């Protein structure tokens, strides 16, 4: 449900801010990463599954989380805000955990994942994006008492 009332001053309402201003660029980057990771993961799971099941399932999972984050960032409801927060936190934990694992023990990951080596295959965008996402969600936190 798009919230039209623009809050006091120049600052847009929390809902609108998700889809306008810097949020729009953030959503665009999320969409690109979500699409590329999901498509790549789907292809790998369908056609090359036996080569590196763990890595490919993880890629697909990561892609779906980015897609969920994208959708949640576009929908500007308080519930979508919480979904986006969870998705962004999953990304952060994922890229840090998998990144560390791939650096310590490369044998478990014979092929790259989105989160491998802290997202090196994707220009380290997976490492930076959740931090930007968190900063953005903080700015657009829905105000508790609804008017």
């Amino acid at each position: 449900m798009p919230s039209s009332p623009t809050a006091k001053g120049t600052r847009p309402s929390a809902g609108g801010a998700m889809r306008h201003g810097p949020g729009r660029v953030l959503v665009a980057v999320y969409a690109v990463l979500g699409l590329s990771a999901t498509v790549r993961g789907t292809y790998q799971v369908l056609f090359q599954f036996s080569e590196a099941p763990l890595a490919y399932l993880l890629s697909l999972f990561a892609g779906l989380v980015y897609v969920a984050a994208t959708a949640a960032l576009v929908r500007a409801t308080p519930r979508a805000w919480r979904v986006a927060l969870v998705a962004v936190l999953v990304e952060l934990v994922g890229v840090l955990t998998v990144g560390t694992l791939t650096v310590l023990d490369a044998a478990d990951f014979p092929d790259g994942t989105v989160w491998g080596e802290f997202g090196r295959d994707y220009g380290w965008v997976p490492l930076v994006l959740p931090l930007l996402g968190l900063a953005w969600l903080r700015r657009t936190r829905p105000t508790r008492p609804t008017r």
Partner: protein
Amino acid sequence: MTPVLAWACGVLALAVAALAAVVTVRGRRLDDRLLIAVAVLETALLVQAVVGFVALALTDRSVDGVVFGSYLVTTVLVPPVGAFWALGEKSRWGTGVLLVAALTTAILVVRLEQVWSTGA
């Protein structure tokens, strides 16, 4: 698939990205000039898609058709979607979206050329 065409598309995508970056930094709105540049890029990508699919059908080298085809289709889709998402925003962030879309297109074109030349 000729490398010349891929190069042309890549350079065009980077040119659109540079133009979008300038407009974004100066805080200007999305204007006709930028939209025309996107249209030129899109035309080149459409030509590339047609040439690419024909080349894929004719080649006897082993090229992963699924990957190559999906890259061809995706490159064609990214600029219009980016332009659409950019048009809805009247601030500099609208052109910022176009910048992201143009850079993505450039990366996709590079990957496309890699898939074609190495078959992976």
